Structure formats: C-alpha cells, structure tokens
C-alpha cells in the first residue's frame, strides 16, 4: 500500500512540475517582443497586416484566454505551427521524423560509454596510484572541467583534417558515425569511470566485503553478487534519464556534424527566431527530463532493498 501511495505522490509531483514549466515557458514566451512574430518582412508590413498576424496567432487576447487556448491545444496534441523555420508546418510533423536519428546515436553512445566507462573505472582501481590510474584521473578532470565545445571541436578537427574521416553525416557511410558517437560518449565515459572507481575503492574495505571474504567467497563472487549490486543502485537512478535523453539528441554534436536529429532543431529554431517551435521543443525537453527523473526514482525504489516508505519512529 505504502508503495502505491508513494508512486502516486511521485507522479503527482511530476505533473505539478510539468504544469509549472508549462506556465513559465508560456509566460516567458509572452515577454518576447511582438516583432519576432512578423517573420523577416517586418519593415514592409503595414500596421493592419501586423495586427492581423497577431490576431491570427491569438496574441491580442488577454493572457488568461491565451493560456486556456494553449492548454486546449496541448490536450488535442495541437502544438501549433512553425512560424519561420518551416513556415506553416505543424510543429509535431517537423519533429517526428528527426527522433529516429537522435535515438540511434544516443543508443550507440549509451552502450559504448557504459561498457568503456565501467571498464576504465575497474582498470583504475586495479592500478591504483600507478600510471593508468593517473592517466584516467587526468582524463576525467579534463572532460569534466573543460567546456565540452572545446574537445568536440578538437575531435572534429583531428578526425577530419588529420585522419580524413568524412565530416558531415551520411546515412549509409558508417565511418561518419565514428566522430559524433565518440564525442557523444566522452562525457559519460568519464562520469561512469569516476563513479565506478570511487565506489569500488570505498567498498573494498567495507565490513560486508570483509565478511564475505571471511566466509570464503571468491573475489569474483563478491564483486558480482555484492559490490556491483550495491554500486548499481545509484546508477539505476540515472539510467532511465540517460535512455530517455537519447531522444533529445545532443544540441552541439548534431549541429556540428549536420545530423538531422532533434538536438540540432532547437538551435535552428532559436537562430530563426521561431517562437512556437522553440516553445514546443522546450516543453518537449521538460517532459523528457521530468519523465526521466520519475522513472529513475521508481527504478531506484525497485533496485534498493533498503528504501522503505513507512516512517520510522523518531525520524524527522
């Protein structure tokens, strides 16, 4: 019962968050100067045409009415029409075909970074304070500290100029996948490696590991059955978010390599000042993030036997 109550409460909170984002996004978009809605012919339009455009978009109604119409549209999955970037096209139909591309890149890099990151972490634990560990630490600091743009550009430059791999993405040419997937993975490789290393270092001296060893379990059994199970719990919380966010694509990488995915779309929409498209994409990201966090919390609940939902006596 407690579990169901918790899940319902958690879902309720997600819905409140989403609604709040909805209101914030809506209000912020109304703050934009109206000129941005006229498209690129601003100076040639007469005053009456301008008014007609605004009226057509429903921007002359009072704010609460506009908000109500916006909500009604959302309920019918009518997300509005693109203004400038793909003038007149419904926003959803611009978006839908792009998801597949982002998904494929995201999934590839997710698998790669999971495998490489955890292996690197284990390698670093085995060679503690020796060369591979130091190199690994240097790598983690570099990736964490330096703005990702800097090393994305370095990878693009080295890959295309010095190793002459084709720069722009082509669907049938597999080598054009290498650079974007590599760039996409670096950040997560570093964070998985750091996490694995830190966790395993802590756990090696934990009491339950000593007990297991005293009972005569082999190192492998201890690792797989005890340490990894424990290490997996916090990762379980992030995994759904990482999976879901593969849909959203990478804002940087997709536009750097001209991948026709969803990430590049937001940048194009911002550059074209396409307000409805921006609004819709921002909402889309918010939905993904809220859903990811919700699933993450639920996944952690399933994975971690220590989490209970009954309040213990005296707990604040």
């Amino acid at each position, binding site marked *: 019962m407690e579990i169901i109550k918790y899940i319902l409460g958690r879902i309720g909170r997600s819905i409140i968050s989403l609604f709040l984002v909805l209101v914030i996004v809506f209000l912020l978009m109304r703050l934009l100067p109206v000129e941005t809605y006229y498209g690129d012919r601003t100076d040639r339009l007469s005053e009456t045409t301008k008014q007609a455009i605004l009226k057509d978009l429903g921007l002359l109604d009072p704010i609460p009415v506009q908000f109500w119409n916006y909500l009604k549209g959302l309920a019918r999955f009518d997300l509005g029409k693109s203004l400038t970037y793909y003038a007149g096209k419904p926003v959803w139909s611009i978006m839908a075909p792009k998801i597949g591309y982002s998904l494929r890149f995201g999934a590839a890099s997710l698998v790669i970074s999971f495998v490489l990151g955890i292996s690197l972490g284990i390698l670093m634990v085995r060679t503690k304070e020796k060369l591979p560990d130091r190199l690994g630490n240097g790598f983690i600091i570099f990736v964490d500290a330096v703005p990702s743009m*800097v090393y994305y550009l370095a990878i693009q430059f080295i890959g295309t100029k010095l190793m002459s791999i084709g720069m722009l993405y082509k669907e049938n040419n597999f080598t054009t996948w290498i650079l974007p997937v590599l760039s996409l993975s670096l950040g997560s490789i570093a964070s998985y490696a750091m996490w694995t290393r830190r966790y395993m270092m802590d756990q090696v001296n934990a009491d339950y590991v000593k007990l297991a060893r005293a009972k005569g379990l082999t190192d492998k059994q201890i690792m797989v059955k005890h340490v990894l199970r424990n290490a997996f719990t916090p990762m379980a919380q992030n995994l759904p978010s990482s999976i879901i966010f593969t849909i959203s694509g990478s804002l940087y990488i997709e536009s750097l390599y001209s991948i026709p995915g969803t990430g590049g779309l937001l940048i194009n929409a*911002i550059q074209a000042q396409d307000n409805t498209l921006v609004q819709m994409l921002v909402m889309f990201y918010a939905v993904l993030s809220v859903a990811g966090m919700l699933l993450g919390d639920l996944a952690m609940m399933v994975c971690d036997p220590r989490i209970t939902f009954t309040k213990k006596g005296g707990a604040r």
Partner: protein
Amino acid sequence: MSKVMTKMNKMSDEELFKFIEFDSSRAESTAYSGYSYWKSTFKVFMSRRSTRLTLYFLILLLLFTLLQPYFPGQKSPTEIFINPETGRQLRSHPPGAEFWFGTNTIGQDLWARIWSGTRTTLLIAIVSVTSSTVIGIVIGALWGYVRALDRVFTEIYNVINNIPTTVLRMLITYVLRPSIGTLIFAMCLTNWVGMAKWIRNLIIIIRDREYNLASRCLGTPTRRVIVKNLLPQIVSVVMLDVALSIPGVIGSEVFLTYIGLGLPVETPSLGNLIDEGRRVMMNLSQTYQLVFPAVVVALITIAFYSLGNKFADASDPRNHV
C-alpha cells in the same frame, strides 16, 4: 631518528623515567588544543607541490588578466588594424612579433581580445557563482535549520529540480536581451538550487551531532559553535561547489554563444572567441584562431576545477591531523 634512538638506548631507566608528584589542580585541567581550522586547512592545502604550482599559476593568470591592459605595448581588443601596404583590413594575420596571437578575420588583435574576453567571462562566472552561492547558503541554512520549513522547501525543491537547467538557461537568454547582466541572471537563477540542497543536507546531519550537543551543554557560545563546529564542515562543500560551478558557467557561456544566445559580437568573451575560431578552424592557416582561445579556456577551467577539489579535500577537518 636513529641518533635519538641510539642515545636513548645508552640511557638507563632512571635517566629515562622520572616520577612526578601528584598535582590535584593539573588532574582537573582540560587541554585546550592550539588547533586552528584555517591554519590546518592552509597547511594541508599547501603541502602538495602540484597544488602549490597550480595555485601560483592561477593567481598569476588572474593577475595578468586584470592588469594586461596596463602593460606597455598592448593593443585595443576592438581596434581593427589596417594593412599599410594594401590599405585594407589586416585579416587573419598569422601570429608573429607584432601580433603575438595573430589577428582575427576582421583584423583585430587576438592576444588583446583573448585577455579582454577572459575578463568578461570570468566576471560573469565569478559574479553569478558568488551570488548564487550566497542565495544557496541562506536558503539552505533556513531549510536545514528551521524544521517547520523543511517540508515546504523540500516540495518546492522537488518541483524545481525537475526542470532541466540547460533548457531554463536557454529560455531565459532567448527571451531577454543578450547582455552580461542577462547571462549572470540566467546562471544565477539555475545555480543556487543545488547549493541550497547540499547545505540543507549537511546542516541536518551536523546540527544534532553529539559534539554539538556537548558544546551546547558545556556552555559554548552559539557564535563559537557556528564558527568552530558548523562552518568548517560546510566550507569544504561550499568550496567544492564554487570550484565546480565556475568551469560550469564558463562552459555554459561557450554553449549559449554557440547557439546564438551569447553576448553580442562587439563584446569579446571566451565564448565569442571560440565561436569565431570555430567558423574558420577547417582552414589550416587560420586554425590558430580557435587553438589560442581554446587553450586559455582549458587552462582556466582545469585550474579552477582541480584547485577546488584539492581545497575541498584540505578543508575537510577529517583530513587534518
């Protein structure tokens, strides 16, 4: 060590051990250690050579960034230089004796622009991180210390935490006019939340620990409890958060500039310089226009990041002794 040992071995038991008379006043005395938190922190922090070198490097870099315009022979970051032979702009002049880092595509001195850009970006980073840290500490302290507020703040946090920061920053900078103030505002609005959460967790953990209870029972004044017992525990977390936030804000500035929401081109910033360099990087003779600002960004962010980590380690009282 060995000299002392051999000397001690030669001494007889009577020489080594002497009886002391019982002194009732000394039996009652409690020791007050000369432990000073900041002195120990500083000592631990400075004990590693690599840390010292990074620290000196960062101080020199910051000083140079501030003072660079007052050095002799520096050029203006916005002046467009003209080639005296052709009378046209000195476009993409390679690095040399006159222009140390070369000129950019419209003939401005890259060396001067990089330092001017570093000043702008560091201003954004330091102002926004400082103010969001202050907000975070105040809210976090209230959240952790006032029990009645805990539930309310936690619910608010859960709602806010669901909104992706990058998206929120993008939205704010999209709606507002691009300027230094806008960027600071956008960073500040999203940064304090994590800080507040950290502080709250720490305060809840520390508040009712036995040593605080003991201090209170012994009649230690509240001011001393805060300064000697609570603050040292929080300093390490605050420093870590500040140190990780500064590279984060710099990265955010680079990112926002890339998607076209950064500062106007007239104001040099590290984001602008990297973006300008990116446009010409595939042209091998102009790649230096990306490499120089990128290296500066990397050096600054790594220095802040690693120093912050080291300082967080050093300021944790458990690592003193």
